[in-house]
């Protein structure tokens, strides 16, 4: 058990924790932020799995742009203000 193994375990646990948080969370904004965090941790996992190309893509697209799209879609709901 060297450092990499511990990191892998930590990353796996974090992935599952954030997955559960996404499923459990009631607030949509929180869900979106958790999704961004999940992507970030997935990128860490990609680095651990020796896939830097994929990690780079996941950070920029999965964690960055997708979060932006989600937030910009959801922001409208707050303006109309008739939900939940």
């Amino acid at each position: 058990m060297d450092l990499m193994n511990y990191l892998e375990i930590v990353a796996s646990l974090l992935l599952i924790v954030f997955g559960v948080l996404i499923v459990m969370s009631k607030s949509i904004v929180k869900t979106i932020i958790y999704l961004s965090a999940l992507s970030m941790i997935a990128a860490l996992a990609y680095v651990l799995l020796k896939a830097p190309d994929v990690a780079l893509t996941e950070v920029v697209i999965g964690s960055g742009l997708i979060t932006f799209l989600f937030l910009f879609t959801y922001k409208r709901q707050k303006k109309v203000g008739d939900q939940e």
Partner: protein
Amino acid sequence: MINIAAVVLILLGLYSLLTTQHIIKMIVGLNVFEVGLNLFIITIGYRSNGIVPILTRTNNVQDFVDPLPQAIVLTSIVIGFGLTAVALVVAKKIHKTYGTYLINEIGGKVE
């Protein structure tokens, strides 16, 4: 290790997709599913003593991890982004038409 987490993410994403009432959260569930799927694909090609599949002065191609799953995931992530963008725009349009993101409320208004 990570492969089990990936399968759990796939299942969590599916569960979230099937049970939630909120359209945005369905798309989030779809994304969780995709993240899990992509992670799983990468783990198929992982070698615990492998190295990053990029040739430098100091390494040898024989030690590389499997690069093909990585290439597949690159494609898959970009495709997932396109899909998410389209789904979100349709969600926006739904909100504009029905004034809500909740499926049970839309169900009443569609008929």
